[in-house]
């Protein structure tokens, strides 16, 4: 969808057009679901979060400012929801944040391959701050500047955080035997 076409769809959705909103769901459900999946490590939680986020987007469409990019707006809502969710989970359950969630069954589509499970496991061992820059750069393919905009931090901070996150992740992967020492 081009920017102009997307803006037209957003405007229709802002006027209560559910079909237009459905087009936005088509456009963004994949990226938002994957973002939530990598942040939480659970397909089931990612599904619930994606649904919650779209409902929030629907309810708050009137407050969306078209001068900003729509994807930044929805990404930010998803990131906030995911981080809040991870914090709540850490606070209210006995689950160790450093372990993949119990929802991560082997037959879960999100964890179809063993290698992906290990990478996801290593990712979950990072702090949410490091995890989000890895997810945004490597799985969402965002540029440094886009990440900076999204997280409201300087580009320089994005780079340094990303470099540190990669090194920590690399060490975790080596410990898991995914990569050689």
């Amino acid at each position, binding site marked *: 969808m081009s920017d102009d076409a997307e803006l037209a769809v957003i405007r229709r959705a802002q006027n209560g057009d559910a079909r237009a909103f459905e087009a936005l769901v088509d456009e963004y459900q994949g990226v938002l679901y994957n973002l939530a999946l990598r942040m939480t490590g659970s397909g089931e939680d990612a*599904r619930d979060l994606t649904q919650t986020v779209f*409902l929030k987007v629907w309810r708050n469409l009137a407050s969306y400012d078209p001068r900003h990019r729509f994807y930044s707006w929805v990404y930010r809502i998803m990131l906030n929801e995911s981080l809040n969710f991870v914090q709540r989970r850490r606070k209210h359950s006995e689950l160790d944040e450093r372990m993949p969630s119990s929802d991560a069954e082997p037959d879960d589509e999100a964890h179809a391959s063993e290698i992906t499970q290990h990478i996801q496991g290593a990712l979950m061992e990072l702090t949410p701050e490091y995890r989000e820059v890895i997810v945004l750069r490597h799985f969402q393919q965002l540029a440094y500047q886009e990440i900076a905009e999204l997280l409201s931090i300087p580009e320089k901070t994005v780079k340094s955080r990303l470099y540190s996150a990669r090194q920590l992740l690399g060490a975790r992967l080596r410990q898991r035997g995914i990569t050689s020492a």
Partner: protein
Amino acid sequence: MIDEAFDALAHAVLDGNATPQQRATLDARLASDPAARERWLDFETTHTTLARVRNVEPPLDLKPAIMRAVHADRQSSATGHFEGARERIGRAIGLRLASAFAIGAVAGILIWPLVANRGDLRNLPTSGTMMPEPGTATIDRLSLAAGTSTLMIELVAMPKGIAARMETNAGGTAEIVIEHDATLTAESVREIEGRPLRVALTTGTIGLEFAGEMRCTVLLKGAKAAKRPMRVTLRSGGMTSRGELNRSSQ
């Protein structure tokens, strides 16, 4: 010796952000520094490993679940939502009407003798909170299609009148004309969502022009309103479709 400058250079190359000169600098460093080569290999391996993670398709039932939630939210907060939409559209209509009024005042002087016998053309109030009350009975329904447009209209019984709820969709622009018994009075058009281009009432006639999707409810008051027949015409793309409501009551 490994330093921050080397790390930045290595990450820039791996992220595809390095200039040819930076790549050459890195190559030279790797050729002469075994520790740098080892560190580069670690970075490269992490990159390659992360690249093996593929995005997955969301569950098939996700989108239907989202849309169900949206529709449920829309229904539960219909009044508030309609208020917002109505306010926005009402403002837009207000501006249009202000312009139209100025033009119309001049035009009216010129064409008044031609239209004087066709009844009063009134602008409709587009604000208010009247919703068909829960439990009100549906009297009749009609679906029409013409050209690139469709119209669904439902008549609902209201205290002292009826509400005609319309859902329309036009590929370009379309016009709806509802001819009703002259004893009925069209009170207002409410719950407007979408782009009405023109809303006009003459005695016994409701005229709506719109583009794209539009929903609205017209309130008609009068004695035995639920038993009065109505003729509905949809015009779009050079095509016309007609139908009747309350036909059985004729």
